[in-house]
């Protein structure tokens, strides 16, 4: 206002003095526990799960950089170590190679 002679290309629409609302790891963990109904048996268990959760937050950030077209973040598995996740939620055995005796599917036409 009052400076019509200036070339004002950008108009400020937010409070210039406001601090950005960045959640801490503790905030994220509280939201995680609430969202997925997580309850831990003891203080020690809680603290351990919190340390795993923080590690998984860092891992999610790494995944986001390596996989930018997906969204990575907190999931129901964020309080599990990699080996716990593998043991409890995966489970393909010997799947790293094709079974030798498997029938091969016939080749299907794919043109037109």
């Amino acid at each position, binding site marked *: 206002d009052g400076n019509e002679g200036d070339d004002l290309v950008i108009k400020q629409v937010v409070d210039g003095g406001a601090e950005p609302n960045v959640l801490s790891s503790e905030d994220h963990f509280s939201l995680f526990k609430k969202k*997925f109904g997580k309850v831990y048996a003891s203080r020690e268990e809680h603290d351990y799960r919190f340390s795993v959760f923080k590690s*998984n937050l860092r*891992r*999610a950030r790494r*995944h986001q950089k*390596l*996989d*930018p*077209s*997906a*969204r*990575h*973040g*907190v*999931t*129901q*598995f*964020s309080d*599990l170590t*990699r080996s716990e*996740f*593998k*043991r*409890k*939620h*995966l*489970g*393909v*055995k*010997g*799947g*790293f*190679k*094709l*079974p*030798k*005796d*498997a*029938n*091969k*599917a016939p*080749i*299907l*036409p*794919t043109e037109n």
Partner: protein
Amino acid sequence: LPEEFDWRERGAVTPVKNQGSCGSCWSFSATGALEGANFLATGKLVSLSEQQLVDCDHECDPEEAGSCDSGCNGGLMNSAFEYTLKTGGLMREEDYPYTGKDGATCKLDKSKIVASVSNFSVISIDEEQIAANLVKNGPLAVAINAAYMQTYIGGVSCPYICMRRLNHGVLLVGYGSAGYAPARFKEKPYWIIKNSWGETWGEDGFYKICRGRNVCGVDSLVSTVTATVS
């Protein structure tokens, strides 16, 4: 081949299930494929029992010593199809409900079998063939490396680097043509995958992974199954 295809829209996919804290993904992948094949054969979508596979299927891969289907400790979809072929079929989910626990005795009631395997085979590592078999035969059992799935929330997963060592069984239900990849500034085609970690995981229980370069080994072990029409 159609540019986009989704068996969910055609009624061949049951609601997303949850394997709980049990390494039984292989059984969910196998039942999902047979549910789709049975739908194509009979026109009826019936949810099938994973617990029957967990309790009763101890089929072994003849080429891999010690690699036998073993409930919550893992298994292989092809071995599950082999078991299903030999035993006569699978019961309904409601007749043999999922508990997510293993070690129980097998409670198969052969008079209650509702879906049977007539044949199964593996598809070559060729995305056109995978798409063609998907469209022709119904949802496909696939194995994948799940490293990126622990933190996945949504979008099209297309990691620059992902191991191809397969460790998770899922169900391929369709493909799309226009998932946007912001870092590459172009539209990326993708597979649509049904997972078994409940609806709160991923995109309502589903995962999208980009097509084109066997990302996370998704094209490596793909099985198609056909159901018997009784």
